């Protein structure tokens, strides 16, 4: 038995020559890469290396000074994200994309119940049937392993790990094709991190959703990412398959990064 051979996939996201400056500082310098459907790419680097700036440029939240970000929409194929009108971009962001923020407060409505937080994106795309919204919210709370008894509680009564899982449910409920994650496990204690990572890994595999994950934690990318880009001073200094980059790093900074991980 041989598995069917897959051909070269068309990219879901195509980034070319992306550059972003803040005054004299170049946060991202001429970054180019393709992301294919279902692929998870990790972006690692130290604080200030430009990885978070890159993420906000990719997710249409910050216009780059040069270069393009193209996304393959379901209906129209590759479109330049920054050439879209603002309402089109916002529609894209709430239907085909998801954004998981490092701080759940940036990604959740703290005054709205857990169920309402998950249901918001459904209502935003026109679902007007309470029973249906409720059932989907329950389904997703279950998927992210949150107690259904907490569905009507406010997120501010949740622990950090629960808030982060709620944020994931809220983003994935409308079946996005691309999720941007900024330090999804930042600020969580280690046991909670492991559970979240495992959950993310399962969901990403199960749903075939592509993801861009920004982190400084190599264990996170080892578990989640197919490919890795190492950023250093605003540039991508090394990229490739995750295991290649981590097991056989070539660039001096990558070697330093890999060798700096403490062994437990």
């Amino acid at each position: 038995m041989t598995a069917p051979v897959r051909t070269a996939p068309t990219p879901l996201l195509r980034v070319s020559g992306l550059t972003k400056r803040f005054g004299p500082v170049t946060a991202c310098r001429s970054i180019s890469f393709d992301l294919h459907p279902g692929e998870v790419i990790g972006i690692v680097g130290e604080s200030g290396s430009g990885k978070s700036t890159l993420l906000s440029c990719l997710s249409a939240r910050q216009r780059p000074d040069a270069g393009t970000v193209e996304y393959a929409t379901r209906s129209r194929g590759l479109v330049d994200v920054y050439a879209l009108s603002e309402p089109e971009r916002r529609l894209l962001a709430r239907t085909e994309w998801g954004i998981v923020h490092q701080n759940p407060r940036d990604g959740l409505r703290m005054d709205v119940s857990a169920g309402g937080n998950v249901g918001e994106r459904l209502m935003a795309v026109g679902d007007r049937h309470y029973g249906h919204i409720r059932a989907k919210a329950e389904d997703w709370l279950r998927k992210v392993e949150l107690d259904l008894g907490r569905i009507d509680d406010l997120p501010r009564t949740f622990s950090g790990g629960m808030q982060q899982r709620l944020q994931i449910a809220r983003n994935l409920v409308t079946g996005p094709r691309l999720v941007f994650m900024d330090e999804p496990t930042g600020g969580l204690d280690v046991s909670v991190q492991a559970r979240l990572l495992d959950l993310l890994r399962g969901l990403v595999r199960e749903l075939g959703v592509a993801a861009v994950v920004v982190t400084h934690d190599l264990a996170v990318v080892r578990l989640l990412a197919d490919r890795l880009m190492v950023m250093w001073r605003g540039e991508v200094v090394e990229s490739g398959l995750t295991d290649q980059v981590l097991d056989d790093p070539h660039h001096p900074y990558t070697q330093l990064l890999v060798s700096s991980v403490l062994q437990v």
Partner: protein
Amino acid sequence: MTSGIGAAEPMQTTRAAIGDSDPDGADRYNYAYLDEQTKRMIRRCLLKALAVPGYQVPFGSREMPLPYGWGTGGIQVTASIIGPDDVLKVIDQGADDTTNAVSIRRFFARVAAVETTEATAEATVIQTRHRIPEQPLREGQILVYQVPQPEPLRKLEPREGETRKMHAYAEYGLMHVRLYEDIARFGRIATTYSYPVMVNGRHVMSPTPIPKFDNPKMGGNPAVQLFGAGREKRIYAVPPYTDVRSLDFEDHPFAIQRWDECCALCGAGDSYLDEVILDDRGGRMFVCSDTDHCGTRRARGHTGRLGADAATAAAAKPRGAAR
């Protein structure tokens, strides 16, 4: 607030007293208090608001001789549209006889020399706080609402820039989140006032804190409906015969409040009722919130359970007992 104010005699006395002490006071102000440039600015905003039903038009709200929250927005709109031929009615939660209604009516009688009335049918301009009169309005009448918070999305989205974009792009999913929260918590849409509406199929609008009982009266109304928010500096409008729909879910449709009781004074079974506590032994009655409606019915001979004892009841009736 229990006694006396509703009675006609003391009110007339007070008015006369002020008039006597300051006989030329009205002359020192421009007609209808605001200067002509301000009125022009507000009228332009009103025209824009009428052209885009439900859209909130920013305007340069002026300081008025009453505190924010007492109707500064409504009073500026009224001042901009009123003329000597108009007949003004002012109601506060349906009643013509509360402090706020009396003060505003007296204000315009003095600075705009207009005739005032308590009869809905006779009025050409009706300024209202939190009610729509029970008697259907007709063409040519203008209803001016006092608006505390013009932004229906504000409770859920605190950023003004963001709510403006949501209106601009008709991204109204968030509005349903508020209704979702109601059903999740109470098993039904428990919002009873400030119930959000969709105007002309385009803009979601706050109907002001009127009871949702009044929401259906907004749609297809022959009168002009103007909304002024003084503190928030916004004006919006619903032109005559405009489609106004209350938001809801397919499986939780919009419904207005119902009472098991009829009005204790006039026996009306189809009006918005206030609950009035009669004594400290659990005695209570329900009466029309719209005092003119109730009085007109009683004058025509309709009587409720306690209607025979109407005079006593009217004296004992506190306002705003129920929302």
